[in-house]
C-alpha cells in the first residue's frame, strides 16, 4: 500500500514584512520551514504505516518548488517518509493554484501511479489558500475529504474524522482518495539521531518538467489563470485615544463614559 504526502516549503510567515517605501517584500533573513500542516499530514502517514499491520505501507513525499525545497523533503525523510521527489524546474515558476495542481497531478500519476491515498496539509501558512489539494484531487479524478484530523484505513476504504463549522463528521470513501489534514492529535516532532542518519540513505529524486512531459503551456506562469497585478502594504488604521490606566478607578470610569458616549451603553 502506498501513501503519497504532498508537502510545501514556506517562509516563516510572521517574519515577512513589506518595505513601506518600495512596497516590496523584505525576505532577507527569513527562514524556510516545512509547512506545519504538511508536517501533520506526514505524521499521520507515518502513524498509519506504524499502526496498520495488515499491509506494508510505503510513504512517499512529493513537493513542487525551487531547488532549496530539498531541505523540506529531507525533513520528511527524517520524520519517516521512505522516499521523496522534488518537482523542480524553471518552467514551473509563477504557477498559481491551477498550474501547481497540474504539476502535482502529473507528478503523482507518472511517478507513483499505484498510490492508494494522498495526504496533504489543509493549507499552506504562506498564502492560506487551501485550494491546491482539492484541485489536485479533481484533476486526478479521485474523491477528497478536507479538514481531516484522523484517518483510519479499512482495506479498500478509509474513514476520516473531519472538522466542520458545527463540530465533527465521520466520512467514509473508497481508495484512492485525497485527505487534507488539520492538526488533530499529531504533533511536530524532533527526529532522533538514528532517524537523521537513516534518512541519508533514502532516495530523494529531482524531477523536471520534461521528465513529466509537461511543456510551458501546461505549467508555470503561462498556464496560470490568475495573475498578480499589484502588491502593496496594507492600509494602516489610525488608532484613537490611549489613556493612562495607572489609576484603575479612573480608567474604568473613562471606559464606561466612552461606551456611553458612543451609544454602546445606555445613559442612566
Amino acid at each position, binding site marked *: 500500500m502506498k501513501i503519497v504526502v504532498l508537502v510545501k516549503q514556506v*517562509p516563516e510567515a510572521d517574519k515577512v514584512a513589506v518595505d513601506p517605501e518600495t512596497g516590496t517584500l523584505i525576505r532577507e533573513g527569513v527562514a524556510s520551514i516545512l509547512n506545519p500542516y504538511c508536517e501533520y499530514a506526514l505524521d499521520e502517514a507515518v502513524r498509519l504505516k506504524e499502526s496498520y499491520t495488515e499491509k506494508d505501507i510505503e510513504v512517499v513525499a512529493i513537493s513542487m518548488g525551487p531547488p532549496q525545497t530539498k531541505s523540506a523533503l529531507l525533513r520528511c525523510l527524517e520524520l519517516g517518509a521512505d522516499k521523496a521527489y522534488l518537482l523542480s524546474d524553471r518552467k514551473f515558476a509563477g504557477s498559481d493554484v491551477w498550474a501547481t495542481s497540474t504539476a502535482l497531478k502529473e507528478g503523482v500519476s507518472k511517478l507513483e501511479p499505484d498510490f492508494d491515498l494522498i495526504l496533504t496539509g489543509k493549507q499552506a501558512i504562506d498564502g492560506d489558500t487551501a485550494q491546491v489539494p482539492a484541485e489536485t484531487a479533481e484533476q486526478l479524478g479521485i474523491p477528497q475529504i*478536507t479538514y481531516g484530523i484522523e484517518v483510519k484505513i479499512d482495506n479498500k476504504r478509509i474513514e476520516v474524522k473531519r472538522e466542520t463549522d458545527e463540530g465533527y463528521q465521520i466520512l467514509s470513501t473508497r481508495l484512492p482518495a485525497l485527505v487534507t489534514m488539520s492538526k488533530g492529535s499529531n504533533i511536530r516532532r524532533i527526529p532522533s539521531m538514528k532517524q537523521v542518519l537513516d534518512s541519508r540513505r533514502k532516495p530523494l529524486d529531482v524531477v523536471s518538467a520534461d521528465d513529466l512531459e509537461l511543456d510551458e503551456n501546461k505549467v508555470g506562469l503561462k498556464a496560470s*489563470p490568475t495573475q498578480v497585478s499589484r502588491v502593496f502594504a496594507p492600509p494602516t488604521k489610525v488608532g484613537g485615544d490611549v489613556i493612562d490606566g495607572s489609576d484603575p478607578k479612573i480608567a474604568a470610569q473613562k471606559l464606561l463614559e466612552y461606551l456611553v458616549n458612543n451609544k454602546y451603553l445606555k445613559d442612566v
Partner: protein
Amino acid sequence: MLEVDIDACTGCKVCERVCPFAAIIVDPETKKAKVLDNCTLCGTCVNACKFDALSIERKAVSEEELLLYKDVFVWGEWERKEDKITTKNVVFELLGKGRELADKLGESLAVVLAGKDIDHLTEELFHYGADKVYLCKHELLEQYSTDGYATVISSVIAAEKPSVVLYGATPNGRDLAPRIAGRLALGLTADCTGLDIDESRQLIQTRPAFGGNIMASIYSPYTRPQMSSVRPNVFPKPKPDTAKQGVLEEFDVKLSPINIRTKIIEEIISKDEGVKIEEANILVSAGRGIGLKENLGLIYEMAEELDATVAGSRALIDLGWLPHPQQVGQSGKTVAPNLYFALGISGAIQHLVGMTSSDTIIAINKDPDAPIFKIADFGIVGDIFEIIPEFIKLLRMRKQSDL
C-alpha cells in the same frame, strides 16, 4: 471540446449515467461514447470515466468569448439549525458586494441554490438583492457532499456562463470552490478582502498575503468565470428590501448515487456549538496577558455583564484554554462585531487581520508600545486585573440603579 478516445472507451456507460445534461450516450452500434450537441463541458463525465477515455481541451477564452459571460453568481450555502434550514449569513454579505459588482457591470445578480427542502429560502435571497435564483433540488443534495454539489454547481456555471462566481470561505465553501475551479480550469482567489471592477471590466480581487503583512491584487484576465471566496464578516450585510422580487428558475439536476463517492457516517455537534464568535455583537477577547487559565473567570464575568461572547488569541487556543472555534485571526475566524475588547492581546498581524473590521476596538494592555494600540479606537495602558474588576463594579452599579 469534449474528446472521446475511441481506443480507451469500453462502452461502460458510466458517462451516460453521470452526465447532468444527458449530453453523452454510448452509441448502440459502435458501443463507444458519443458527445451530443447539448454538452456544456461541465466535466462531470471526464471525472467519472475510469479508463481516461474522455478529455476536455480547455483554451483561454478569447475577447469575443469573454463577452458571452454575464452576471454575478453567489453560491447559496445554507445550514441546518435545530432542524430548520436557513441561509448562511455570508451569503447575504456576498449578495451585498455582488449587487455592487453587478451594478458596475450592468449585469444581474443570481444565487445558485442547491439542496433538498430549500424552496423557502428563495424569497429572502431576493430581499437581499438577488435578481434571480437558480433552484437545484435533488434527494441526493439533502446533505453537503463535495461530489454532489460540485457536479450541480459546475453544471449551472457551464450552462449559464456567469462572469463572476462568489463563495463564502466556510469549511464547505473551501471544499467546494477549488473542486469546481479544478473541474472547469478556472482561477480562484481565496479569502478576498476587497472585490472591485476595473475600467476593462475585470474583477480585481484583493487579499492579504504572507500573514497579512502585504496585500495583493489578483485578476484572471483570460478565463471566465472569475471566481473568489470571501470569509464571513468581511463584507457588511446589506439591509433587506422586503418589497424586492426576483425570478425563480428551477434548474433540472440529474444526479445518481455513483456521482457521490463519500458517505457521511456520523455527524457530531460539539458542545461549544453554541459559541459562535463570528455572529456576536460584542466580543470580549483575551490573550496571553491573562496569565493563568483560572483568570478566564474574570473575562467571562465581564462578558456576562455586557451580554458579550468570549473569544481569544491563538496563544490561548494553543494553550488549550479555549477551543479552536473561538480563535480570532488568520488561522482562526474573521470577526466584525460592533464592539471588540482586546484584553492582554499584543496585536500581532495575524490577530489583527481577523478583527480590524470591528466597528469599535477597545484595548487594555500593560505595554504602551503594544501594536494593538495602533488600531484601537480607545486604549488603556494598564493592568487588566486592576481595571476589569473596577469596570465590572461600575457595570453592576448601573444595573442596580436601572432597577
